């Protein structure tokens, strides 16, 4: 009796070790490629690399930025994990962030925002709005078969333009012409957990979200059905699961997470107000987090810790050296390519022995650096 769980545990441990090895291998390869790019383009490549790898820990302030990024990347990673587990490629987290942020802003700048309800209502409004925005591509796919990738991407652009418009023309501003709203009242801004840093309630919300998503996926029948639909939608359908309902609910729940992220952006210490284009491409980086974490909610924050560190390192490198922060895009792309493919470390060595085929990965960076 006791051997079965033991075998299960040891094989699970083996899988985990393999996955971690693959992820770290991909990280090393990606960093090597990035380093080659920096070496070719920078006047002080070693200093740049040093800043990238050590500076996020240099001051309490930078550590705060790092933790803030962990919280945000965790939530976007969870949002992508949910839809990826159902094998839906809904790419709408970015749009949900903007819509959620707008909803939170309207609450925060209303009389309610100045009361104790500013934070809970702001979050609730953001999550509802995000859920609605995630529901649209879901229902369009379930009822009409409209491709969810295309519709969710279009909704992203619409949300960004809507946000631009409302900030410019509708929401109260400190002075005409600026593209930010008034600062939110203190009661609507997440309080800091550590003074003089950006560490605020966001990280708590992110951790709660991790536990909730894990519980929903692995300890409820909805989660079981969702994973079954993800593995084999037709089989799930035959066994009496309403696959379309599961798809729509997965996208809606993921939308609520996207909305939460929107509220974390505007109600967090970073902004405390709504500005145009505040998200800066972070939402899409959840794809990397979800893929490296194999869409496992409990692995998401761990991946987010590493990736947020790199992200902050790149920002500091941008400020202190001549290497633009966008070099991190190359690292991100290579990690996604390697981790989502069936590469293994043996495969890489075999490739190098064979020669020409191995040039494909560095060519990715070379193509961009042209």
């Amino acid at each position: 009796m006791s051997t079965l769980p033991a075998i299960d545990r040891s094989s699970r441990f083996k899988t985990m070790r393999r996955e971690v090895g693959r992820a770290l291998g991909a990280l090393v390869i990606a960093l090597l490629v990035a380093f080659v790019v920096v070496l070719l383009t920078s006047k002080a490549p070693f200093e740049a690399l040093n800043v990238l790898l050590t500076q996020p820990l240099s001051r309490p302030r930078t550590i705060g930025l790092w933790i803030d990024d962990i919280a945000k990347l965790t939530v976007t990673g969870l949002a992508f994990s949910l839809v990826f587990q159902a094998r839906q490629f809904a790419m709408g987290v970015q749009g949900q962030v903007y819509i959620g942020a707008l909803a939170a802003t309207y609450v925060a700048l209303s009389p309610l925002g100045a009361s104790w309800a500013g934070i809970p209502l702001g979050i609730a409004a953001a999550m509802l709005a995000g859920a609605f925005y995630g529901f649209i591509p879901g229902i369009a796919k379930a009822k009409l078969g409209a491709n969810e990738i295309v519709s969710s991407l279009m909704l992203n652009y619409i949300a960004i333009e809507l946000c631009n418009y409302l900030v410019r023309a509708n929401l109260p501003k400190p002075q005409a012409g600026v593209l930010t709203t008034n600062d939110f009242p203190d009661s609507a801004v997440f309080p800091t957990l550590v003074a003089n840093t950006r560490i605020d309630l966001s990280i708590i919300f992110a951790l709660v979200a991790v536990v909730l998503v894990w519980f929903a996926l692995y300890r409820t029948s909805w989660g079981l059905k969702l994973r079954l639909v993800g593995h084999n939608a037709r089989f799930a359908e035959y066994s009496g699961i309403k696959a379309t309902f599961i798809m729509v609910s997965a996208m809606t729940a993921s939308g609520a997470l996207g909305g939460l992220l929107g509220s974390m952006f505007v109600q967090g210490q970073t902004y405390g107000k709504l500005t145009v284009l505040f998200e800066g491409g972070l939402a899409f980086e959840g794809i990397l987090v979800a893929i490296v974490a194999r869409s496992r909610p409990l692995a998401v924050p761990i991946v987010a810790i590493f990736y947020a560190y790199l992200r902050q390192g790149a920002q500091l490198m941008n400020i202190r050296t001549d290497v633009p922060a966008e070099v991190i895009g190359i690292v991100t792309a290579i990690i996604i390519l390697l981790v989502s493919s069936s590469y293994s470390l043996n495969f890489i060595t075999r490739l190098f022995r064979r020669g020409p085929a191995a040039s494909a990965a560095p060519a990715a960076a070379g193509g961009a650096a042209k």
Partner: protein
Amino acid sequence: MMELFLTVFSAAFFVTVIRTTTPLLLATLGGLIADLGGALNVALEGMMLIGCLTAVIVSVYAPWYVAVLAGLGAGALLGLIMAFFAFRLKADIILVGFAINILAAGGTVFALALATGGDKGTSINLQSKAIPAVDLSFLSGIPVVGPTLSAFLSGHSVLSWLAAILVFAVWYFLYRTPWGLWLRGVGEYPAAPEAAGIPVNKIRTWSLIVSGALAGLGGAQLAMFNYVGFTRDMTAGRGFIALGAVLLGARHPVGALLAALLFGAFEALAVVMPGLFNDIPAELIRAIPFVVTIAALVLFSIRAQRALALRGVK
């Protein structure tokens, strides 16, 4: 309202529509070829963007046609990378596509900063070249219809004419050559061509290379004719709209042309409308092409479902 009608039915508006349609059409044809080969190419956006930047930077040092070829080559190379990871290393092609998009979004800004010496917004201080327009003003010598003909046909980019020819070429390739049949077979049911000894992965690889080349060509048109120079994220979702246009065009080259024209017309409207209606906010006008894409996608899906229901398939 009257002014809008006058604008829409003018030759100048027609020329604008062709200009806005061309990059979309090239990307849509690229998406179509990948889609028929069984791969949804979500990387069109990134391929276009890298095509834009490559074309702009090469055009500083080389004649315009070399720059256009460089844009095309950059797209093709990305297609090859995509195929390598998707088919050789068995990665999910949609994730590979998004990796390329992320690479393009960051990589182009990085490369732009290097090329301009620190400017991360535009390539305004690079002397990049433009694709020449084809001048057909001699047509106005024809009696009666001459001036109209010249007004409508003159002033289009060389690539616009090429794109029009490519619609026919792609149609011919798909429906009149054995390779086109193979490609469609691979997309429809890969096991059958595999059994018949057709090299499935090779065909898919080539379809992605061609797809990338067409998207890169679209990028060259965007950055060397529609706008001269590179701006960060200048494709602004056109690659994704092209994906929608593939589906809307019923996965046929002529349908792709019509769908691209539809989206091009709405983009052109978004270009001329701010001058006509001051009270409609520019942001909402800019959102029109995206709203139209969703509406078109939904309407098309309803139609496709009806067709399936008629055939008795559920």
